[in-house]
């Protein structure tokens, strides 16, 4: 249990100054071939000294919270401590936090500290078992603070000073909320939830959250319509662009339905798709057209962006965005909302917000994957699997699989359209997170990307390399299918960091693209990497 290193203890969270942990490449979990040779992995960098003036480098030197939140003097420190305790009290009160009160209090009360959860956590393992990333580390800190200051129980050995708060704030962003650890806990204790609740305390009480989630995330989405900053006009241009893209790639002239009242389905994609992977929403347009589905997109504010970052750090923002999504659907008078290939958006609107939506807001909502499965298996599309004659593996987005139980539809599709489909190990509900979960995929400030791709995504990269072990030859194109925008964002950064596309011909993308790529009447491959460059 890490005995050979000096052990970081729980009380070290309050250590006056200094960085608790310094990561080095040699400590990290080794990668499988061909990345087992020295020099294959880019080195680690040092945090810039000036960062520590405004940001917290005292945990591991990486910065997730990219707003300057460090107190400047004793006075500000005192206020921060006071407000933190105030927030902790609200976090454990019914009216302020009924949304997660029971799960939180159960998790605080009953952990047996058996540490069975640690070996299930990809971050803890990939880091070379660094104590600060142990699933119970941040939980035990919050538990002791709660026991000591709120519940006033005896025996809580912890000191609350400014460093406790600074480090705990950063530490809440060293967990992807993948909840893999919960599956092995004999008592059902949820360390992921505790990280989630710490984030809420910081955001809802102190206004402290990473900019990509809050300021440029939910706040921007509620104001401008999308966390990408895309306004309705830009969205409509995007639709035009996709129609052209479809024509160019397939020779089909398709009119993408927008704001069509009374359609059966309102399809909402993660707006990031339009900017980074327009082939994915375009593929859905092609498939729905071909299958004769009655559907529409919306160009109304928030109606064209399925994301709901609130689910990662702020219940109020979660509720606001969920309500907006439903309002858009009600105005369009559709029968149901279907969420595109985006994991957290699926979980947020279909699962988590289910107990916020009542009365007339209770509109049916579902993931696009079962629908796509039904279309593919119904033979409405003329598909030739041999067009996908390259190795394909499937990444299971935590939010769709472990947290929503949508496991088989994507597999049934792949078995039909990808003859060289192979599973990663482990997979399904026991998968590993891509490393971009809980907002990480969009958090790129300062050196955080480095931590993500080296630590959080390390286990995923290992799995990918192992899934393709027999076909690693760069002449063979390989495809990691990830039916989730955020997972794709993470895979993009991951493959780029390790140069895996360039060196080993490993590509990534969604599921619908792969379906369209198998369509018989397409002359050119739909997937760009299959197009032979002159």
């Amino acid at each position, binding site marked *: *249990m890490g*005995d050979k290193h000096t*052990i970081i*203890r729980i009380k070290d969270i309050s250590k006056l100054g200094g960085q608790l942990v310094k990561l080095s490449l040699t400590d990290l979990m080794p990668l499988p071939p061909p990345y087992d040779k020295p020099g294959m992995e880019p080195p680690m960098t040092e945090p810039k000294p000036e960062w520590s003036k405004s940001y917290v480098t005292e945990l591991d030197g990486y910065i997730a919270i990219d707003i300057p939140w460090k107190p400047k003097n004793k006075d500000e420190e005192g206020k921060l401590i006071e407000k933190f305790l*105030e927030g902790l009290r609200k976090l454990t009160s*019914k*009216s*302020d936090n*009924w949304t*997660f*009160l*029971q*799960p939180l*209090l*159960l*998790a605080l009360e*009953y952990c*047996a*500290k058996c*540490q*069975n959860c640690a*070996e299930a956590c990809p971050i803890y393992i990939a880091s070379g078992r660094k104590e600060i990333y142990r699933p*119970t580390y941040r939980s*035990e800190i919050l538990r002791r603070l709660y026991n000591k200051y709120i519940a006033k129980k*005896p025996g809580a050995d912890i000191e609350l000073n400014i460093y406790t708060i600074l480090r705990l704030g950063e530490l809440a962003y060293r967990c992807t909320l993948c*909840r893999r650890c919960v*599956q092995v*806990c*004999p*008592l*059902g204790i*949820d360390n992921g939830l505790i990280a989630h609740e710490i984030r809420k305390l910081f955001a*809802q009480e*102190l*206004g402290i959250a990473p900019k990509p989630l*809050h300021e440029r995330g939910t706040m921007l989405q509620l104001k401008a319509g999308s966390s990408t900053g895309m306004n309705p006009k830009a969205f409509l241009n995007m639709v035009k662009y996709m129609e052209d893209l479809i024509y160019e790639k397939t020779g089909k002239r398709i009119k993408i339905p927008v704001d069509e009242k009374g359609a059966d389905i309102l399809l909402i994609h993660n707006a990031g798709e339009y900017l980074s992977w327009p082939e994915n929403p375009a593929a859905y347009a092609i498939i729905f057209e071909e299958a004769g589905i009655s559907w529409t997109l919306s160009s109304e504010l928030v109606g064209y962006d399925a994301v709901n970052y609130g689910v990662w750090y702020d*219940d*109020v*923002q979660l*509720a*606001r965005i969920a309500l907006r999504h439903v309002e858009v659907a009600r105005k369009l008078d559709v029968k149901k909302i279907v969420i595109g290939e985006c994991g957290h958006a699926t979980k947020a609107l279909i*699962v*988590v917000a*289910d*107990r*916020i*939506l*009542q009365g007339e807001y*209770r509109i*049916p909502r*579902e993931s696009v994957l*079962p629908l796509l499965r*039904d279309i593919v298996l119904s033979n409405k599309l003329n598909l030739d699997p041999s067009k996908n004659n390259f190795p394909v593996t499937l990444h299971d987005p935590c939010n769709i*699989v472990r*947290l*929503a*139980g*949508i*496991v*088989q539809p994507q597999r049934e599709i792949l078995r039909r359209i990808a003859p060289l489909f192979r599973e990663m190990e482990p997979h399904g509900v026991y998968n590993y997170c891509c490393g971009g979960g809980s907002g990480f995929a969009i958090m790129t400030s300062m050196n955080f990307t480095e931590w993500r791709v080296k630590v959080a995504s390390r286990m995923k990269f290992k799995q990918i390399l192992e899934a393709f072990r027999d076909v690693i030859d760069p002449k063979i194109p390989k495809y990691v299918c990830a039916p989730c925008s955020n997972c794709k964002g993470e895979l993009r950064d991951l493959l780029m960091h390790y140069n895996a596309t360039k060196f080993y011909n490993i590509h990534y993308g969604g599921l619908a693209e792969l379906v369209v790529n198998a369509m018989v009447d397409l002359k050119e491959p739909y997937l760009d990497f299959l197009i032979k460059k002159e």
Partner: protein
Amino acid sequence: MIYALVFKYTSYISFIIFVIGIAYKWWKWSSMPLHLRWELYPVPHEVLKAEYGGSYLEEVNWWLKGRLVSVFGELKEMFKEMLFIVRIYRSNKRLWLLSYSFHLGIYLILIWFILIFLGAITTTYIGIPIPSMNPWAIFVYYVTIIIGIVGDVLAIVGGLGLLVRRLVSPVLRDYTTIPDYFNLILVLLALMSGLLAWFFDPSFNLAREFMSSLINPLLPPPYLNVITIVHLAIVQIIIAYIPFSKITHFIGKYFTYHKVLWDDEPNMGQLDGKIQELLKLKLFWSDPHIKSGDTWINNASG
């Protein structure tokens, strides 16, 4: 004699505290407000899908299909966990050996309690002495001895192992708080004093006699030796203390699984009333993006 009488009455008191305490704990957890959905798959009550961790959300128009919930699936998973602690078995065999031996021992001791109780009824109310040649009496007599001893030894071995494991590993030591040690040591003291008491009461006749005096208020308690008195005192303290300690994790576990991780009940209108009530609550979070002091519903819709 007077001691024995005192212990007869404190037995009732500690038992009553236990029952009320457990009922209170149960009430406390079950009266918590409805929370947002936060399920985790596999959810064992999903018919046909539990095996691979699937849910009703795998179906198009799932809300039209009716939702089948298999109580049997939940019970199966619950008993697998309770009787074999499979989650630890799968990931940590060494820990499992200790934890399982400890818990199995405790379960056996609970069965021993029931046997002592049955024995007391048999002698007091049915009039069959134990030991005697009556087949039932023979059965109760021997099974009580075997279960009691095996249970106690297993629990002591497992409990000591868990304690040592905590003490030797620097990480575990760091996570263990004084109340954690206190609970484990208290239980171990009860188990070990029980073993000592058994040396003076090898066939548990004294235990049965004491139980007889408990189930018949008119019956005076038997003479108790010092070690039995010490054991009895510790056991009574534990019984009264359990509801206020983490030893009630069996209750916690019920709620974490049934009311959080497996709670995938969609709102088809049946929860509207509860949700409306909760949305009327006021929230006081103070960051300016929240309308502090206003209700959830007003916050969400504005």
